């Protein structure tokens, strides 16, 4: 069934179709509609779930962890400050191998107060052991929630499904809402082999000496390394059943491109428009949108840029004292594999400043005019 819905409701429908059993959440702009609709669904019993209306995001994640350990499928959603408040428990989720799925609406961090989009909130959590999926349409948001449950529960690693504030969260798009029966066929119930139950008492997460801790972390990484292949496999299964592939990256006219613009999130669709216009002007541009940031899809990125003469990575985030974070990761993926391919790092759109096709044209022009980047960071659109 096709519906015109906002990105936030795409998250809610994803959680509903995924049959989340325990939801715990706390409101924050621009996430509120996610939990409002889920409250309605729980109240009218169209979703058989318990909704714990907690007093903070920290407690939201804590409740999800408890419920997940008891063997229930759990979902929450947050943004920016809320995600930062959860930080401690993000480690707890992955370290405890609890496959919580969370929606995060990318919002800039305060101060000054901002409710608009940038990626510093979720990218600040990159080392917490969560998988991170950056979506570029409401359809992709809904589909990815369902896929994330499947991948997370197989690997026992939590997932963050990420969408831009307002450009996706509050923007209405046509979304195909899959049939529940078919989703049930794709996504079996969560049934962990070990869980918290008096039938078989275990102590979870107790004091762990240097004799054991190291191996637990090694195993977490080893499972994370299985994720790229599993995401591609489950993405193909999804395509077979629902007609939409869910992969690690999305390529647009990359195969014969001289210049590849690398983006993430909703600006991917803007980049595609810019690429098409540049092509008309005779510039052989392409767009590679990185959807999965953790685990980082090294292999597919190395292959995607083969043949390109220049790479421009566009970041809506910054690691202060370093670079844009996608830029860092792309360079590290290409090191030793790309034979000196110049990689330009651009930062733009912080705090929700608009990113338009002309932003990409400016980036393209800068890149075409130079053999290699002269600056560590190339800023686009700073008004001083």
């Amino acid at each position, binding site marked *: 069934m096709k519906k015109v819905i906002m990105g936030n409701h795409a998250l809610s429908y994803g959680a509903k179709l995924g049959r989340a059993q325990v939801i715990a959440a706390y409101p924050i702009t621009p996430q509120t509609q996610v939990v409002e609709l889920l409250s309605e669904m729980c109240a009218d019993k169209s979703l058989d779930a318990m909704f714990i209306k*907690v007093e903070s995001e920290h407690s939201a994640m804590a409740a999800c962890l408890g419920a997940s350990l008891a063997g229930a499928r759990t979902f929450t959603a947050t943004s920016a400050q809320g995600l930062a408040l959860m930080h401690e428990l993000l480690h707890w989720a992955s370290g405890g191998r609890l496959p919580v799925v969370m929606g995060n609406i990318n919002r800039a961090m305060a101060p000054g107060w901002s409710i608009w989009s940038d990626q510093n909130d979720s990218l600040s959590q990159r080392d917490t052991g969560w998988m991170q999926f950056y979506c570029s349409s409401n359809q992709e948001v809904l589909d990815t929630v369902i896929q994330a449950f499947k991948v997370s529960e197989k690997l026992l690693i939590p997932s963050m499904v990420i969408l831009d504030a307002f450009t996706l969260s509050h923007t209405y798009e046509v979304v195909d809402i899959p049939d529940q029966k078919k989703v049930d066929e794709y996504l079996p119930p969560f049934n962990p082999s070990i869980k918290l139950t*008096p039938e078989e008492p275990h102590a979870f997460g107790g004091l762990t000496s240097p004799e054991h801790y190291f191996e637990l972390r090694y195993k977490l990484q080893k499972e994370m390394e299985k994720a790229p292949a599993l995401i591609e496999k489950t993405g193909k299964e999804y395509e077979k059943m629902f007609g939409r592939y869910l992969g690690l990256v999305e390529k647009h006219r990359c195969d014969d491109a001289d210049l590849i613009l690398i983006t993430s999130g909703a600006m991917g669709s803007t980049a595609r428009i810019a690429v098409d216009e540049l092509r008309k002007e005779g510039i052989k541009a392409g767009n590679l949108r990185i959807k999965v940031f953790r685990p980082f899809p090294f292999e597919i990125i190395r292959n995607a840029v083969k043949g390109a003469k220049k790479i421009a990575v566009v970041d809506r985030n910054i690691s202060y004292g370093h670079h844009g974070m996608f830029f860092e990761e792309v360079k590290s993926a290409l090191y030793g594999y790309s034979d000196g391919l110049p990689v330009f790092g651009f930062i733009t759109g912080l705090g929700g400043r608009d990113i338009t096709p002309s932003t990409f044209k400016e980036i393209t022009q800068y890149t075409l005019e130079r053999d290699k980047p002269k600056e560590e960071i190339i800023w686009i659109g700073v008004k001083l």
Partner: protein
Amino acid sequence: MKKEKKMKLSLPEVELMNSGHMACQGCGATLAMRFALKALGQKVALCIPACCWSVIDGPFPYSSLDVPIFHCAFETAAVSASGVKAGLEMVGDKETTVVAWAGDGGTFDIGIQALSGVAERNDDIIYICYDNEAYMNTGIQRSSATPYGAWTTTTPVKHFKNRPKKDMEAIMAAHRIPYIATASIGYPEDLVKKVKKAKEIKGTKFLHIFAPCPPGWKSQPEDTIKLARMAVQNAIFPLYEIEWGEKYTLNIKLKEKKPINDYLKIQGRFRHLTKKEIVFIQEEVDKKWERLLLCVNGSK
């Protein structure tokens, strides 16, 4: 043939706590767990945040308890229990009692926000705070449960704690939850009775168990039970219940309230107190006791 006589026990025989745990000698918190589990039985799940008990239970892969434990983050005991309860219900287990088991720091200080949220929603869990009146697991730092006058490593003798212990029962009563009780390891039958009662009530139950700590109180391990009983008899830690935030019941009535002197004397943490300070503490205990009696009498 002679009929075999069966010994009558005042406490349930079941033992869900085993030897081999890692508590200090004379640990009150250990007795609190043993008695509480006797009352709770096997069908229970514990959420234990950072506290002495996160060590006492034993390191991975061991556990000294025959019940499942979720070792959760410091400030999350109450809401972790809510999450476990919801999760168990959604997977079809509506029987298991879920207990948050936290120390005074995890309850009075860092965990109070989550606890308040749980109590306001009246989530169906038992919250048990075993109170040894300081951060003992980290090496005796003051908490808001530390009593007036006590030495800790962060309230040195020259600057001992000059604020009263937080009145946690009053705070919980303000949430109007179905059941609140104080209990003491010095009165095991009363403790077991209260835990059993809490188990039968739906909603948020808050139990506050007084649990002396020899290393932290600078007392002798063999005095743990004695101290726990003294604190009840001198009204420093009276045993009472509050139902729905309104109905107060005194469980151990005192014909004659003992002076606090003997109690303070056998604890090194109070050794520095002058006569004047002891008189002040006695006055405060007396006032608090009178206030409690007013609540109890007002409930009749």
